[in-house]
């Protein structure tokens, strides 16, 4: 079952008078439960594509469906509602809220985005912190955590609303190799347990091979795709 379908998706930015084509009619599809990587050098268009899939931006042309929703049809508020329900985000710089503890950071989307009652929140957060191995660090604030620990908390935050899709933009860029591998291993394990689709971008050659489906982007064009033996492909 296809979770994401892109058909001739393009994105053009205006730089003053000059139009810049960040994405040039890319077509692809990603199945539910896939572990997908968009690979390419800086400026190739992978973050632009992730932003479109994440409903943070709208395509300039073509059609992009995420969980059956046409991204171009979403207004600002509807897009926020859609993201809060269907998509989790993991960022390169972790982007945890510094005034909140690890527990509170994971709890945050349940309070602010989904208005889940306190009684239900506790179990959801506890389970996720346990799943990412951060239960014993729950009361620490981001500045008391290592990079790997922060990203584990960020993964838990992305998953706590049980999204269909988790988007990770360069999730290991700020981590050493071992930590990066353990984070990817964690993401994969959670994918296996929760059937959540993971899509991440990277230009780190060390971790490209961890993806089961790989899309290569260069100059806004989806060049090739490969399958590393995962259970899904595009």
């Amino acid at each position, binding site marked *: 079952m296809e979770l994401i379908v892109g058909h001739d998706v393009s994105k053009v930015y205006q730089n003053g008078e000059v139009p810049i084509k960040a994405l040039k009619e890319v077509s692809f599809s990603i199945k539910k439960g896939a572990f997908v990587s968009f690979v390419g050098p800086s400026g190739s268009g992978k973050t632009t594509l992730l*932003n479109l899939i*994440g409903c*943070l*931006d709208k395509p300039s042309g073509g059609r992009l469906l995420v969980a059956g929703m046409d991204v171009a049809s979403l207004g*600002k*508020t509807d897009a*926020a*509602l*859609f*993201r*809060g*329900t269907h*998509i*989790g*985000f993991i*960022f390169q*710089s972790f*982007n945890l*809220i*510094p*005034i*909140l503890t690890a527990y509170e950071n994971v709890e*945050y*989307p349940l*309070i*602010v*985005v*989904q208005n889940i009652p306190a009684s239900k929140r506790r179990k959801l957060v506890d389970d996720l912190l346990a799943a990412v191995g951060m239960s014993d660090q729950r009361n620490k604030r981001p500045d008391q955590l290592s990079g790997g620990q922060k990203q584990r908390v960020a993964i838990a*935050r*992305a998953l706590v*609303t049980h999204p269909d899709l988790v988007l990770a933009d360069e999730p290991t860029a700020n981590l050493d190799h071992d930590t990066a591998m353990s984070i990817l291993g964690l993401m994969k394990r959670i994918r296996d347990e929760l059937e959540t689709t993971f899509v991440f971008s990277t230009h780190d050659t060390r971790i490209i091979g961890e993806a089961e489906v790989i899309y290569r982007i260069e100059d806004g064009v989806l060049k090739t795709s490969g399958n590393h033996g995962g259970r899904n492909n595009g």
Partner: protein
Amino acid sequence: MANLIKIAGRNLFRYKRRTLLTLSLIVIGVLFVTAFVAVTGSFKSMMIGQITDSFVGHIQIHRKGYLAAIESLPLTMNLKPGAVRKVEDVLKEMPEIEAYSQRIKFGGMFSNFIETTNIRLNGVDPELEAKTVPLLLSRVIEGEKALKKGEIFVPELLARGMKVKVGDIVVVIATNRDGSVNGKQLKVGAILESATGPGGRDGYVHMDDAVEILRMEEPEISEIAVRIKDFGALHKVFAVLTGKLSGALNKEGKPVFDVQTWEKLSPFYNIARMIDMMTLFVKIMLVAIVLISIMNVMIMAVYERVREIGTIAAIGTLPRKILAMFLLEGLLMGAIGAIIGGILSSGVIYALQMAKISFDFGRQTGLILSPAIDPAALLTISGIVIGVSILASLQPALKAARMDPIEALGHI
């Protein structure tokens, strides 16, 4: 909501020094305004009390047109006995009225047998006058504090100019409404301190002496001064009294009576208005302090948290919730400032009360300032602070809510 307040609180104290500095400004502002309102309010109340209780009374009733001609004290514009009875009936019916005093006001000549000068006099019933303007007798600076028949209370400046003392015999000569002149010897019973405002430099004689000098068959009243029980209800009582007397019309179908509060009768009212204006100005300063300081903090908060705003927007926080979160921060800061400021103000006002600060007003010495703040006024000031805090947070909050998540996430 509790969680949002908790988050707002933590965000506020993310930059402790800045928040504490801003809070200090708000607290000092609230403290200053509250103390100012309390002290000036106390001063104003005391001054109004001095004026109304010394000679003006709270309300005065005249025949329509009398006030316009009051400088000449026209006896022809006195109230007819029937009109006076009508007023008395109305006043007796009203439980809000504490006392009233009828006055015959007239001008005449004052002679010490060597020199003669003009004098303005009030013929009063001493007992009723004392009940209506209880501080009148406190203006006696020499002599006995009781006005008797055959005696005159001479205003201080006139006594000094005419070199008369308590116990001296003087002559008062006046022209009655028919134009005939009459005079009467009176003993100086007391020297009276002058007061600011119309009637503040008048002398006093007994009503019976005034009737005799003016050769009236029965008292023809120029003015009825009224004292009410609750000064706070002045305008309400005034409205009721005006309503009750407005039905009385003369032969031309025009109103017989002219009812006025002290505000229209004393120039001090303008000073009271100036005090109110100063209070308003100080409140505007408070608004400016709160507005600028909170807006500054909130603008900085938004600027410093752009990526964070991008993050919470990306994970699905609705723009209106982002708006609410920042407004809540401003509201919280205002509320904390207002509460701390309110508590400290109450302490300062209590300390000022305990200090028993005294001041002089005319001959009145040792008046004790008793600043007090009405809880409603304190709530109003707190409400202003909180309202302005929300207002000051609105622009930064809107900016945060409207932020594009992609741009915000890319902010360095």
